[in-house]
């Protein structure tokens, strides 16, 4: 390491000291290195002779009776996280043992303090705590069932039950651990309180506060329990509160950040699709703005959550304001776009049609469901010409269309004429969705009544005489 780099690093690690002291130390080391260079050593060698820089820093700081672990706590990377978790678990177990002993001792000491008030206080606190646990159960249950169904569907090859079961088990375990730790922390604070002889006023405060904020996040509740205690400083329960915060982080990540990320992805895809449509000429600027505002809003939300989890950064308001403005404008434009659609109760002009015709002969009355009747006296008697016009699309068309007559099926019934047909569809594929035809529809903003494809227009031609044979 070169001299300047070494000195810079040293200065950084000694940042807890005052400027003057730091300068003092850095100057001294600079002098020593200079001297060594004067006596023939290279920069590298001179710096190397000081040994490990972290050890060096620890030694220097120990002269000021500073805890060398102090600065290091802030930087925890992902790999340290696992180590921290293990430590927390050990500490948690220790704390549990300690606290149980303490509780027993406290009870013995404060035996005579057990007035009716303190009993009520205890009962109320227990009830509230249980309610809180029940509420806490809900997100865990949601996460558990979501995760297990996800695992069940994707782990089909391994064994459908296994994945889901493991997931449920994990969430249950985490939930139980969280409950126990919360219980420990709260009991510890409570017993510390008993030692300091707190007044009755405190009883009213936590109850009122709890009733209002039961639905707020766990963070706030723990903080309020801290705040509502007396003037005596409760000894900060470092280890267990650290465990709690770590678990809370995991919890918040799973329940809040991940769903937000998915919604963000959805908004982003909406954005891409709307850009594509605009590119093709469909005027969906409104939808585009909506998607942009969603992206900004969600992005800012995710940013806030993740910064809160890992270190407190300033909350930026302006993304929310911008996204709100865009949202208002976007929704107005979207509404305008959708209002631009007109409905036509018919089929479009360019729809395809075919006509079939058949001439039938009949002596008796016959029932025909016709739309139009034309008196054509060039027709012979007892002859009826039936013209059936039907409409179809490329993807949706008729097959085996025929005009048939049926004999009466009861004593007083008539013969009737029916157009028989089969329906055929072309297989739907996703590419269809983005064909130009679909985009055309969005562009023109016209909606037609495609139900009319099922109608068949029947026109019959009869002469004067035969007309009466036709019943409606």
């Amino acid at each position, binding site marked *: 390491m070169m001299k300047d780099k070494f000195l810079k690093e040293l200065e950084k690690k000694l940042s807890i000291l005052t400027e003057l002291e730091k300068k003092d130390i850095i*100057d*001294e080391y600079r*002098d020593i290195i200079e*001297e060594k260079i004067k006596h023939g050593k290279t920069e590298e060698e001179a710096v190397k002779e000081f*040994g490990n820089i972290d050890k060096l820093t620890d030694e220097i700081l*120990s002269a000021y009776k500073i805890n060398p672990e102090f600065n290091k706590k802030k930087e925890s990377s992902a790999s340290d996280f696992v180590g921290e978790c293990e430590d927390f678990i050990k500490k948690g177990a220790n704390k549990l043992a300690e606290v149980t002993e303490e509780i027993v001792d406290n009870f013995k000491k404060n035996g005579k303090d057990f007035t009716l008030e303190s009993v009520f206080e205890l009962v109320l606190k227990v009830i509230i705590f249980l309610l809180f646990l029940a509420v806490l159960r809900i997100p865990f249950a949601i996460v558990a069932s979501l995760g297990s169904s996800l695992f069940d569907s994707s782990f089909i090859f391994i064994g459908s039950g296994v994945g889901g079961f493991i997931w449920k088990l994990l969430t249950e375990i985490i939930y139980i651990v969280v409950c126990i730790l919360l219980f420990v922390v709260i009991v510890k604070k409570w017993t510390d309180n008993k030692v300091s002889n707190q007044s009755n006023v405190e009883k009213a405060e936590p109850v009122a506060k709890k009733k209002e904020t039961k639905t707020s996040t766990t963070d706030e509740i723990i903080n309020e329990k801290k705040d509502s205690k007396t003037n005596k400083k409760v000894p900060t329960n470092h280890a267990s509160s650290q465990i709690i915060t770590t678990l809370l982080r995991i919890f918040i990540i799973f329940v809040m950040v991940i769903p937000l990320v998915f919604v963000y992805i959805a908004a982003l895809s909406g954005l891409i699709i709307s850009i594509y449509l605009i590119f093709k000429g469909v005027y969906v600027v409104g939808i585009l703005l909506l998607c942009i505002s969603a992206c900004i809003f969600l992005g800012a939300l995710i940013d806030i959550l993740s910064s809160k989890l890992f270190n407190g950064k300033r909350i930026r308001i302006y993304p929310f304001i911008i996204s709100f403005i865009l949202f208002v404008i976007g929704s107005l434009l979207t509404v305008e776009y959708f209002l631009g659609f007109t409905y036509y109760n018919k089929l479009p002009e360019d729809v395809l049609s075919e006509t079939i015709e058949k001439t039938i002969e009949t002596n008796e009355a016959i029932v025909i469901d016709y739309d139009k009747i034309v008196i054509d006296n060039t027709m012979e008697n007892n002859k009826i010409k039936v013209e059936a016009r039907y409409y179809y699309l490329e993807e949706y068309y008729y097959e085996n269309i025929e005009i048939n007559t049926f004999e009466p099926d009861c004593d007083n019934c008539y013969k009737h004429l029916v157009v028989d047909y089969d329906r055929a569809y072309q297989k739907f594929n996703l590419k269809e969705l983005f064909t130009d035809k679909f985009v055309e529809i969005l562009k023109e903003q016209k909606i037609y009544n495609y139900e009319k494809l099922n109608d068949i227009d029947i026109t019959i031609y009869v002469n004067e005489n035969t007309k009466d044979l036709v019943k409606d």
Partner: protein
Amino acid sequence: MIVLLAVSNRDMYGYELIEEVSKVVDINDGTIYPLLKRLTNEKYFDTYLVESNEGPSRKYYHITSLGQEKLVEAIEVWKVFAKSVNKFIKESEKK
């Protein structure tokens, strides 16, 4: 103790001290300065700066009366320790 002894003979600055002490024991340069810092904070040393024409000003260490007392104590302790160790060695050699 050696550091205290060295400085009690004459005032020295950082690098000089490392040299002097290295003559007696093999020591890591990195530990000298923290040690000096500690002894200074505990008022065994005073420091003063001397302007130098060949470079920046140097910090010199000077032993205080408190430091002097501490030195005397430390030498006593060392002498007692040395005596017991020597005695033990002599006894082991006899056997």
